[in-house]
């Protein structure tokens, strides 16, 4: 068993390494540097960074109270709430995208939002909405796991030492959950940067308008511009590797799944 297991592990390691390495070899450093000066790639990097950072901040702000409620409180219908909040996790991103498109395009609430100026269909705002919708369950799950490993008695003690309920959370529980929060942030952000599914469905794939890095990759490969496509892919891979290292570094006892 030992030999078979190790052999399969080594083979898989080589297949993955070779695939990634192939990408770097195709696009040597000077070519990559050249691609980075391309306005389209620069736009894609900028848009990806802005939308992913904003969507990650929204995910953090919303997921903290939701994860805390799920970890600490009992309330009627908790199981169904948990289930619904987890649905986007299992939904194929394309399906999530079409659902969002229908919600904002065809329902009275969606149209009301549109008329109120919250225009998401085929706009950069749509990128943020799609990223939040798809990624927030990850953040909730990671934070819920982090909060539920923290004994509520820490907060009890903090309250006897002069904290309000909110104060005890921010002074004690949140700092204690910082590894989970950091791991969640890195995962959410790297998933947001790479999101391709829900985003083009809702925000469209328009060059120099809603063109994030994965969309730039898709548009350029469709248009036969392999150099730019590979440049976008290489940047995405570098981001993934950095995120993986960060998660490995921060992930201390936090269960992602």
């Amino acid at each position: 068993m030992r030999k078979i297991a190790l052999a399969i592990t080594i083979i898989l390691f080589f297949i993955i390494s070779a695939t990634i390495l192939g990408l770097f070899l195709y696009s040597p450093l000077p070519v990559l540097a050249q691609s980075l000066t391309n306005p389209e790639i620069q736009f894609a990097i900028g848009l990806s960074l802005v939308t992913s950072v904003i969507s990650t901040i929204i995910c953090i702000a919303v997921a903290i109270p939701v994860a805390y409620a799920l970890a600490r409180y009992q309330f009627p219908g908790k199981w169904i709430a948990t289930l619904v909040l987890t649905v986007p996790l299992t939904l194929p991103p394309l399906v999530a995208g079409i659902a969002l498109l229908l919600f904002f395009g065809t329902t009275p609430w969606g149209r009301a939002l549109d008329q109120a100026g919250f225009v998401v269909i085929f706009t950069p705002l749509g990128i943020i909405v799609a990223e939040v919708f798809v990624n927030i369950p990850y953040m909730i799950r990671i934070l819920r796991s982090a909060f539920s490993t923290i004994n509520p008695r820490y907060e009890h003690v903090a309250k006897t030492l002069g904290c309000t309920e909110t104060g005890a959370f921010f002074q004690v529980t949140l700092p204690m959950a910082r590894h989970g929060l950091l791991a969640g942030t890195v995962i959410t952000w790297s998933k947001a940067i790479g999101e391709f599914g829900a985003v083009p469905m809702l925000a469209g794939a328009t060059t120099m308008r809603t063109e994030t890095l994965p969309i730039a990759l898709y548009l350029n490969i469709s248009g036969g511009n392999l150099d730019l496509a590979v440049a976008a892919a290489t940047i995405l891979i570098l981001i993934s590797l950095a995120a993986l290292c960060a998660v490995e570094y921060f992930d201390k006892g936090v269960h992602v799944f």
Partner: protein
Amino acid sequence: MLRIESLSITLDEFPVRDVSLEIRPGEYFIILGPTGAGKTVLLETIAGIHAPDSGRIFLGDREITSTEPRSRNIGMVYQDYMLFPHLTVGDNIAFGLHRKKISSDKQHALVEEMSSLLEISHLTKRYPGTLSGGEQQRVALARALVLKPEILLLDEPMSALDGRTRERMRMELSHIRKHTGTTIVQITHHLDDVFALADRIAIMREGRIVQIGETSDVFMHPADIFIAEFLGISNIIRGNSSRHGNITRVTPVAGPEFFAASDVLGDIVATLHAEDVILSGEPFVSSARNCLPGTASEIIPFGNTVRVILDVGFPLTALLTRESCHDLRLEPGSKIYSTFKASAVHLIQVPPSAQRDEIEPLIPGNIPTI
């Protein structure tokens, strides 16, 4: 003074039912009870962590039933200390002072004062994860005491410590109490804590206080069989008692009669502490009214003492020092006489239903005297 009136709260599977208590200023009060008796919930409700379903809590003349925990001036130390792992020892101790917006110079002085009282000055730069159990315990105490609480609540504070550290911590707590004059309410499983520290104790079972009183009184006069067993009283003998002249005679279910200085008559259980039984090779004349011949059936060494189980017609346990056991040349099968005073025998009425669980709780003053 802490006064609790008819406090009830239901929290998961640990309810507290109709608890009334008065804890005197400067007192060391211990609440004893089996797991699941509701002791921690009671303590947390006193601290203000949970709102009671009914009842009231007073600290001095001030009603604090719905006061926030931070405004109660009650400190709390849990069994596993709950030191904030992301803060140094010094910051842990200063945590409450910081919330009170005390100037940093004053904070520093107060932390220093409390650290030196608890001999942890050398640890203030370290993080809790690097400390031993005993050190963490001291830090948790310092963190609570630095705020000079009127009441300090200790939830099984010594359960996680090894025997020797526990012994030292008991001395420490006694010293702290003398030095600061803080009223302490502790919950524990350990009878040693009770003997070493408590002025008064309360026994809790299934959310209720079933007996409360001076430590020695409760040990001498347990209110029911559950309490007698819980307090580790070795001899619990079922039988019947009747009055003969000015003395009460106990007829056990099996075995010889003996005398008790009690006016509890009828179906009873008699309790007798093992340390109140004297063993001798020959009967001797004394003021003790009971002298029963028997045979040693088991001899169990227990630390510096020896527990001897005799068969006198019913099993009777005596506690001797190792030396006494050696001098009496005791071994299983030895013929031996056991002598005990009638006043050492405490009788508990068994209610007609004979349901142990339905024995009514006693309140102070109702404890039968012998």
